[in-house]
């Protein structure tokens, strides 16, 4: 009996681990991003920043591989046929957030925006907010697989933090356009703020869908 149950669930066990690793990648990307931007604001495009940017790129690359593996296994092993489309959708949208972290970090590396010192605190705050948003999104998504009752709690946090990040990015934009710096710099910095805030918006959209999928998944 023990052997039977082992062989019955061994194929799904490795996939369960892969899904867990995939969520780990999202959390890694969020924390590394937060740290990278802090370093960038302190040191500019330093070696340490380049290293962190590369680290995010590697996380994104690993997440892509995991995503492809999860997707192909779900189909080839004909798993969760009734919820497979929803799970694939979730995995792809999680990947979008990881991609966005990489994209923004690389954009900082390439364009080297010059944020005046008096904005550093608020930029860091915005980055913390979007990272928290992504982390809670990851936790909500993980809960979708294991503990449905927690999905709502994490989702509520995402909605709250996303709203906070909207306020932060709006105030930053106003402040930048009220300042005396060049218009070209204003437009560039505004673009960066939008890119960072977009991460929280993607997380919010993800949660909207996740809550629908949770209703479908509940018995």
């Amino acid at each position, binding site marked *: 009996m023990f052997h039977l149950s082992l062989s019955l669930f061994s194929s799904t066990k490795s996939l369960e681990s892969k899904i867990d690793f995939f969520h780990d990648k999202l959390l890694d990307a969020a924390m590394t991003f937060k740290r990278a931007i802090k370093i960038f604001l302190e040191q500019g495009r330093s070696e340490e920043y380049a290293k962190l940017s590369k680290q995010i790129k590697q996380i994104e690359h690993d997440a892509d591989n995991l995503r492809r593996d999860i997707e192909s296994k779900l189909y080839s092993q004909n798993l969760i046929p009734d*919820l497979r489309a929803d799970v694939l959708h979730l995995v792809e949208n999680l990947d979008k957030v990881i991609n966005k972290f990489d994209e923004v970090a690389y954009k900082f590396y390439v364009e080297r925006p010059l944020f005046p010192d008096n904005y550093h605190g608020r930029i860091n705050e915005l980055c913390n907010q979007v990272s928290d948003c992504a982390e809670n999104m990851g936790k909500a998504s993980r809960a979708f697989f294991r503990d449905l009752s927690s999905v709502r709690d994490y989702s509520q946090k995402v909605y709250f933090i996303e709203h906070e990040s909207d306020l932060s990015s709006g105030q930053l934009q106003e402040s930048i356009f009220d300042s005396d710096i060049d218009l070209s710099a204003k437009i560039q910095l505004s673009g960066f703020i939008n890119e960072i805030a977009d991460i929280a918006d993607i997380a919010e959209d993800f949660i909207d869908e996740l809550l629908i999928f949770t209703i479908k998944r509940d018995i």
Partner: protein
Amino acid sequence: MSSVDLTYFIFLSSGLFLGWSLGANDAANIFGTAVGTKMVRFRTAAVIASVFVILGAVYAGAGASATLGELGEIDTLPGAFMAALAAAVSVYWMIKSGLPTSSSQAIVGAIVGWNIFAGHQTDTAVLSTIVSTWIVCPVLAGIIAILIYYLVRLVLRHSRTHLLRQDSYTRFGLIIAGAFGAYALGANNIANVMGVFVDSSPFQTVSFGPGFSLNGTQILFLIGALAISTGIFTYSHKVINTVGNNLMHMSPLVAWVVVVSASVVLFLFASQSLQQFLHSHNLPALPLVPVSSSQAVIGGIMGIGIAKGGTGLNWGILGRIAAGWVTTPLFAAIICYVSLFFLQNVFNQVVYLN
């Protein structure tokens, strides 16, 4: 095969046809969602359903069949042929008209029709017992479904089972529930298919070696169960694909709850050993009567609907089921009576002895 044997099988054909249609339709109740959602392959479902329908029919089919025998002992082969044919035609007619129907109710109507034609008194006590089970069947399935539903929900909430693991458990559960459902279907519904032929059965006990033999009734039930299996293999896939469960979209887990609750009800109304066990402990037991698997499934689905808060339930279907309790046996009785008249007076067949 002698000419007498061939004649027997010609008369048995109406029962075999009823068995075939039962297999084609009722397998969808047991494995419909599992196959429809691709949780279980059709071939796997068909093999399991066939094997367990045969086991249920041969080893546990006698109880419900005996009750039908109490309602009316059809003592000639042409009479049995016409009763089964009347039941099959009325089921077909009702399905064509889009009304919920059941072979269990049709065969009861046909037997009553035969009783009237043969001038036999219908035992009203037996009849009222049978009719009451038609009402109890979906209600009981609903109650059991509610209990299982809450239990499953409780377990899922506390166990924090991973979605993929839950999928594996559900897949495994659907196969086990399907096997149990097929066994219960065979045990309960073989009476509809072959019950009227029991009294005119020519089969004798056959021994297959030490400790393994089948009596005449079991051989008859085996033939009927093979007809049900043929229906499962040849046509149930089409029923699953085109009609599915035709009631509501169900997740595999909810389908499992529905199949288990419906199967338990079919089993309760078929198991002689359970009845004996309850009697021996001075507990009330359910009568052994063929009931409708479709209506048990509907009862199960309604139960889950109520457990979920009762919103979006189609209460009209209950009225239509209740209408079927009257119309199906009435149609079958009328068709049987009229057909027996023609069989006796036009084709010169003896449709009753005494």
